[in-house]
């Protein structure tokens, strides 16, 4: 039952994402591409067309018809998406429910796995307690700190490495040596390096996010069409302007890929770091539950991690769509 609630929450962000995406994409073409409009924005272009039709036609009737047809399409599309989401999540939930109900034993063992109901109870008991919420807040704070430091260093450095051969020659050897070391392998070193526990966990989160962001930014600069840089130079762009007005926006799609990947790795690294060296945090919460043989809390911790990760990548995608409305028209369609 706890998971039915979660199933609904999972579906909602996906629909939100679509509604957020489309108006942003449609705005610039509102008057031209009425056919491409498939969003709640439809009244605006429709209104713009009102003066055009001949007097003998009654515009309102045809307009409502068109509107209705569009709405029908939207909802059908949405319903299918939502339904499929429910099916996949429902199947997972059902597997869990049946596994724990009949205590399945076929190589994997459901003997000690808590039932959905137990987890739901755990949520109502522990879920709204201070301890649980503080753990979430601390994990989110660590993620955001590490992630934003990774952006602040990774994006400018990536742009410079991508643009200048000499900077690349200087930094890439270090990057190539450090990159294969997983963030988790940094845990002992991090504890030695940093004065306190908090800083070392943030550092590990940073390491996790840093390399995907850096490498994707470099890739973004390299995949930028050289003719755009030449065009900007001809139009009088200075070196600084070139970075700000051409290289940065041109690399933005790849940078956002880096952010999405980096966020995922940051969560993996954070949870591992919290489990090993932590006080507080969702990873610590989950590991502590295991130590205390509190099985429902383990699952609650896992679900919490899943939701936090989902929310973070959802936010990144949303910000990306807001910042890069042109991608909706790019060859190859929406990302």
């Amino acid at each position, binding site marked *: 039952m706890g998971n039915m609630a979660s199933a609904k929450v999972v579906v909602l962000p996906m629909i939100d994402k679509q509604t957020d995406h489309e108006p942003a994409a449609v705005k*610039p*073409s509102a008057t031209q591409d009425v056919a491409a409009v498939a969003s709640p924005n439809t009244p605006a272009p429709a209104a713009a067309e009102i003066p055009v039709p001949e007097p003998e036609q009654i515009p309102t009737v045809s307009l409502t018809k068109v509107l209705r047809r569009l709405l029908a399409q939207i909802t059908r599309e949405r319903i299918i998406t939502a339904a499929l989401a429910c099916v996949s999540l429902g199947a997972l939930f059902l597997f869990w429910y049946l596994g724990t109900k009949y205590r399945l034993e076929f190589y994997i063992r459901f003997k000690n796995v808590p039932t959905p109901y137990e987890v739901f109870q755990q949520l109502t008991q522990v879920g709204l307690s201070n301890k649980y919420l503080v753990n979430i807040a601390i994990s989110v704070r660590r993620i955001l700190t590490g992630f934003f430091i990774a952006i602040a260093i990774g994006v400018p450095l990536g742009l410079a490495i991508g643009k200048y051969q000499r900077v690349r020659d200087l930094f890439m050897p270090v990057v190539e040596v450090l990159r294969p070391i997983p963030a988790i392998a940094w845990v002992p070193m991090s504890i030695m390096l940093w004065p306190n526990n908090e800083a070392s966990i943030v550092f590990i989160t940073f390491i996790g996010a840093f390399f995907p962001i850096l490498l994707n930014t470099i890739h973004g600069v390299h995949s930028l069409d050289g*003719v755009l840089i*030449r*065009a900007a130079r*001809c139009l*009088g762009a*200075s070196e600084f302007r070139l970075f700000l*007005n051409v290289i940065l926006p041109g690399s933005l799609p790849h940078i956002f890929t880096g952010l999405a990947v980096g966020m995922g790795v940051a969560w993996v690294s954070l949870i591992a770091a919290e489990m090993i060296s932590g006080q507080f945090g969702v990873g610590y919460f989950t590991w502590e539950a295991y130590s205390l043989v509190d099985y429902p809390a383990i699952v609650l911790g896992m679900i919490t991690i899943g939701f936090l990760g989902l929310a973070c990548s959802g936010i990144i995608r949303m910000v990306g769509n807001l910042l890069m409305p042109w991608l909706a028209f790019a*060859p190859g369609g929406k990302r």
Partner: protein
Amino acid sequence: MTMAMAEAQKGFIDVRNMGVTFGANDNKVVAVESVSLNVQPGEFVSLIGPSGCGKSTLLSIVAGFVKPTSGEAKLDGKAITRPGSDRGVVFQQYSLFPWLSVRKNVEFGLKMAGVDQSKRNTTARALLDLAGLLSFENHYPDQLSGGMKQRIGIVRALATSPQVLLMDEPFGALDTQTRVVMQEILTNIWQQFKISVLFITHDIEESIFLSDRIYVMTARPGRIKAEIKVPLPRPRKAEMTDTPEFMNLVQELKGLIREESLAAMAPEIKDRGLSGFGMKVGPKGVGEIF
């Protein structure tokens, strides 16, 4: 037009004894050899030649992207060392910034020059109107057709009021019908702005229709093979392509270019002749003949 007048007006391109060599030692390729040419202020000059003859390299030098190995290129008496907004460039590839709206693309050069927003806006809208694309000002480039993109590319290059316009096969990627329309649009725009144009093309009809003067280049290493004046009256109209004067010029240029196109091909093919080439291509492909 006398030299005295040419010096007085802006937009005089002067290229002297230009040579460009790529690579070093054994890999050395002479792309351009002792080329001299000029574009008088307000003149429309085309550079035509077989592919690989270095005509785009020449344009890159005038644009300031490439430094010549020998000789020099000057604009109004000043040596060209790097790209600048005094020379507008239109590229063969679509070069609009995909993240900027059409209007912001046209405004780009003005923004770089520090022109304030309201003035940028007015200028950009006027230019878009000239290109017949004002209603698309808020579209993104990816929403437009190739011909529209190149029209915007042209007015974007004109926005900063450059002295010369350098065009590197700007219509090469367009279909024939669009290209013909674009040529007419370009002559109209050019007549309004009266700036010097150096136009690179491999299309004979296109070069005649647009130009006051045409330079024909040889196959690599590129040299100037001939200089042809186009005495057709202005404004040029699409119907002019059917006149005997136009046809004669086409024939003349075709003869000149054909020699060079053959010279540009592999020596083996040239020796055997084109018919031999056709005979010997077996099922395994062209490789068999070598």
